[in-house]
């Protein structure tokens, strides 16, 4: 059943908290270099789905395959090393460190205890940090303490930290929440740029933004997939209008 071409293949995934099924026999397939947006009302299980993929929450049943490898029981850091990056809903960066250090820590080298002890900031690392900083528009702020950045800049920094790891699948949880119109604009451009080299899953509420970036949209409701397809298609889906857009 599973297609080896998919970056991510989720089949019959189920998780329950004290009997409440947050995700219920869900199937989802993501193509290479696809930017998928997941929408749905609060409590639909969107964030839980991301948690399950990156290993933060453990599934009660079903399978998650990343590039045809089963990752359902894999340790979190191994899933990351396999190539899955995850951005959290609220910006999760190291506020006390500079932008440069934030990016440096995310560089995928010296990941063992003693490796980290021996890690040197080589020219290769510096070059990569500058490249990523340019990508996310923070090059001028490299030596600023991250806690002093604006909310939007923090979101970008976290995306930048993920880019340092060059993930093949990047998952973003509401990346533009709390951003100004201008910042949304820039973020949309950023996402479109970076998805050329990788697949992405984005959770978002802002329909304008979704329309702009999505290749395909998945609508979730009560732990299940309600509809899937292009933005136009799901927006005209009667079920979706009923449970979500109609409200």
């Amino acid at each position, binding site marked *: 059943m599973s297609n080896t071409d998919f970056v991510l293949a989720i089949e019959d995934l189920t998780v329950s908290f004290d009997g409440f099924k947050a995700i219920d026999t869900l199937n989802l397939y993501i193509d290479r270099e696809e930017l998928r947006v997941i929408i749905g009302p609060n409590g639909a299980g969107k964030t839980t789905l991301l948690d399950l993929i990156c290993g933060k929450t453990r599934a009660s049943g079903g399978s998650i395959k990343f590039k045809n490898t089963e990752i359902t029981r894999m340790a979190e850091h191994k899933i990351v090393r396999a190539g899955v990056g995850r951005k959290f809903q609220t910006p999760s960066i190291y506020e006390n460190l500079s932008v440069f250090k934030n990016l440096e820590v995310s560089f995928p080298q010296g990941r063992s205890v003693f490796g980290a002890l021996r*890690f040197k900031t080589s020219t290769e690392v510096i070059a990569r940090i500058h490249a990523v900083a340019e990508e996310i528009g923070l090059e001028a702020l490299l030596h600023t303490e991250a806690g002093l950045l604006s909310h939007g800049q923090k979101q970008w920094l976290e995306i930048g930290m993920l880019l340092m790891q060059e993930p093949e699948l990047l998952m973003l949880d509401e990346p533009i929440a709390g951003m100004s119109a201008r910042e949304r604009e820039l973020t949309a451009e950023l996402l479109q740029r970076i998805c050329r080299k990788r697949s992405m899953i984005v959770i978002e509420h802002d329909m304008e933004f979704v329309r702009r970036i999505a290749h395909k949209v998945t609508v979730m409701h009560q732990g299940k997939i309600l509809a899937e397809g292009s933005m136009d298609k799901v927006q005209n889906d009667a079920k979706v209008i009923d449970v979500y857009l109609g409200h």
Partner: protein
Amino acid sequence: MNTIKTWIHQHQLGGLLALALLILVILPAGLDIFRLNLFGKYLTYGFVSIGLVMLWGHSGILSLGQGVFFGLGGYCMAMFLKLEASDPISTRIQSTPGIPDFMDWNQLTALPLWWQPFHSLTFTLLAVVLVPTLLAFCISFAMFKRRVSGVYFAIITQAVALILSVLIIGQQGVTGGVNGITDLKTLLGWDIRSNSARYILYFANAGLLLACIWGCMWIQKTKLGTLLLAMRDKEDRVQFSGYDVANFKVFAFCLAAALSGIGGAMFTLQVGFMSPSFVGIIPSIEMVIFAAVGGRLSLVGAVVGTLLVNLGRSYFSESFPDLWLFLMAALFIGVVMAFPNGLAGLLDSHIKPWLARRAASRQTPVAATGDPVVPASITPTQDLPLPTTIQAQPE
């Protein structure tokens, strides 16, 4: 001269140098050998304190069982010294000469097998570091892989301290029981109780402590140090950047244990005995308080705090025998309430800005003050985040 100054600033060695000046020059010059020996004893607790700075302040893991590792290091050293003190000639009045006196009292007629290697100084010195580290590894590996954290970890370390102290007291035939291992005299024939030996041991201890602080500063500056700090504040982010956080926590715990073990061994050498009262819960908590008073984020601060608390205890208990516990209690509560980052935090948040303001008002350019450890803006609230955001709740 200026280049040296910048070098010191760059490497944030100002605090370390000040501490070195204090314990290598000022104290030995100003104190008689009795008081100096006392300070030597306090400095051995300093090893535990810097371990706690690395473990608690820097990595966010509170251990209430550091006394266990201090005790183990001390016991290893004490076993070696006791064997040396128990040669067949000085123990000829025993039923079995040549074994430690407490074994003889407990009808042991031969040295237990696991005591044998402690005839060797090399083995002993290795054991001083490795025995605490190994135990720390076993505990922390099991705990952190199972994601035990915060208060729960602290309470488990307490239970470990309790288990070990009951065991040591209960197995008095091979451990010396509640009296500990006492009456230690010589190290390779060198009388450790003479004044000259005390001076040498004091300086060895002080030098070793400064070296350990320097080593910890170096670790703080590597990527490992950055990661430990990052892990304390945003454990999830570190984990989802591809790091196995459990391994890093194990490292921090083992490091703190090794440092404590060294401190214990130095204690045995300078004080001349080791007792299970160190392994228990009360000394373990007191050691946390030493670090807290000095500042859990500052290596130098924690050592200074250790010295101050112990000095305070000696002074108060000599001068105000009826009130000294109130004074200590007030000190602990006061520090926690008013200066959560300890005396070092006070320096960073009040004194340095004040100095900077004064300097600025004199129209002199302000150089970046050499903060010994971490930026002052770090808040100590990350120990156990309460659920503060709505996202933490189930959907």
